[in-house]
């Protein structure tokens, strides 16, 4: 069997940048696409849409609760609205409106959070969203997406617009390592196996997909063959991919830039418990808030790098009976 090609980090645009570009394409494709923003358009990158379609860009000021409900009203009147802010504000300040005005009546609103996770860096914990996957998944009927790179973000934002129903998409501030080539297809709810392996499966989303690919290369040198899955959709989760991974590799590590409480890990664990129980380990933020610093420094300090994924893999492999 030929040696695998090693994964190399090549930075592409941030996923928030890809979101902003996708919105412009959507604006051209469908006149019903409208965008609401809460005074952060130059950070969420909805500014591209605002420039191209000023009449369809609705500035709502620093008032996220109102924005989420205005978005619901737009959707109820036939529009395809995207509401956007930092994840920390869209989800936490808009949560009640997302529950009662959007989730409960199953309204066709698209919520896109940017600046997710701790990789926003210097601004610190008040701006860092580390719990929104859990919150979004607790909204019945929501689709919840956390893409890894530019290509997947663009494709999944477009898929979100085409899907009828509420969707939350999580994007980030820093440049994101390129994971996918131009020909990759993306489907909501369908995980992508980005590397095959037989001893363990690493299931990741967002920035941790690239880190998991790096970890897999390191582990290969140690004789551990790791499968890597990009679980870009946290809900509805790809049960088949998880059950297959559990059956084939009999050990799973989940890696995410999110609190381990309520994140992707617990969702994967539920499926593993219901299908093919096996040892699991979890890489994520452990019951704490981060701090100011450079993104890489923070990812290192809070244990979200390839080496942390590799360490979790060694641990889980050792637990295999």
């Amino acid at each position, binding site marked *: 069997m030929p040696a695998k090609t090693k994964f190399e980090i090549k930075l592409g645009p941030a996923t928030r940048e890809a979101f902003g570009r996708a919105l412009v394409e959507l604006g051209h494709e469908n006149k019903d696409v*409208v965008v609401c923003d809460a005074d952060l358009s130059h950070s969420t990158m909805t500014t591209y849409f605002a420039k191209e379609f000023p*009449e*369809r860009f*609705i500035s*709502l*000021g620093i*008032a996220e*609760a*109102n924005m*989420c*409900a*205005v*978005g*619901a*009203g*737009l*959707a*109820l*009147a*036939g*529009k395809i*609205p995207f509401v956007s802010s930092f994840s920390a504000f869209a989800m936490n300040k808009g949560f*009640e*409106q997302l*529950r*009662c*005005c959007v989730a*409960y*009546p*199953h309204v066709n609103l698209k919520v896109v959070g940017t600046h997710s996770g701790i990789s926003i860096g210097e601004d610190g914990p008040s701006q860092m969203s580390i719990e929104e996957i859990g919150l979004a998944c607790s909204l019945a009927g929501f689709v919840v997406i956390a893409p890894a790179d530019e290509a997947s973000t663009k494709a999944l934002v477009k898929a979100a617009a085409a899907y009828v129903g509420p969707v939350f998409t999580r994007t980030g501030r820093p440049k994101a390592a390129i994971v996918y080539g131009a020909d990759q297809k993306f489907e909501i709810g369908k995980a992508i196996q980005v590397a095959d392996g037989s001893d363990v499966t690493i299931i990741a989303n967002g920035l941790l997909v690239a880190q998991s690919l790096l970890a897999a290369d390191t582990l290969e040198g140690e004789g551990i063959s790791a499968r890597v899955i990009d679980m870009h959709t946290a809900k509805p989760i790809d049960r088949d991919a998880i059950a297959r991974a559990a059956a084939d590799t009999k050990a799973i590590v989940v890696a995410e830039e999110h609190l381990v409480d309520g994140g992707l890990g617990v969702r994967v664990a539920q499926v593993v418990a219901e299908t093919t129980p096996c040892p699991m380990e979890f890489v994520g933020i452990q019951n704490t808030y981060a701090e100011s610093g450079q993104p890489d420094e923070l990812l290192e300090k809070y244990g979200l790098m390839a080496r942390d994924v590799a360490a979790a893999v060694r641990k889980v492999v050792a637990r295999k009976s």
Partner: protein
Amino acid sequence: MPKSIDELQAIARRIRREIIIMIGAAKSGHPGGSLSAVEILVELYFNHMHIDPKNPTLLDRDRFILSKGHAAPVLYAVMAEAGYDQTPLDKLNTLRKLGSVYQGHPDMRYIPALEASTGSLGEGISLALGMGIAARLDGRKSRTYVMTGDGEIQEGQIWEAAMAGAFHKLDNVVAIVDNNRIQLDGFVKDIMAVDPLADKFRSFGWHTIELDGHDPLAVRAAFDEAQATKGKPTCLVAHTIKGKGVSFMENNPKFHGTAPTADEVKLALQELQ
């Protein structure tokens, strides 16, 4: 063809009876704030709004949102009387029962002709703004009406929406505050005073009209004035009486959220002959 004031008053009387009967049968619910809103909803659904109950998805229809969702019984009775297929008159007495379309608070999963699901207070004006923006973008004449309670406007989101409605010059949106002066725990002035209400909305940039919310002529004139107002949204501060029409419920905080007993239902219906 506009309905005469006499016709509307006869409808209002029927609706008050239906509210009492259905909440009595449910043994729970909110009679006070349903009874205070009757004349306003009757004018909207039977005269003012451009709607077709036989075609609830009519593209350029006017829309109504009951932001004070706990007053669901008045909306159900009005829609039933107006002839929506999804709100049968003969099922009103299933209010709050398992499987009934008449859920405790308006739920569009059960009645798709509702324009929104409501119940968590403070959210309706924002929803109305979204609908108003959509209508303007689409070039539809469709107008959106939203009723809040006076206690409800203690919610901060109301003022976020008040800012946004004026900023976006949404003259196709009308907010009606059912100013019945009572909320669950007692009189609004004792819980968290909201006066001067009209001044507050005016200072946020809304055209405001104060009126007697039980005077059908005043209600009609206010909606006409709102429709003629350009460049800003309108807020109607409707002075009303909680429990209006039933002597022992009027101005009585107890009947914000308590159903009448069987004896009280009988008494109330005698008064509402």
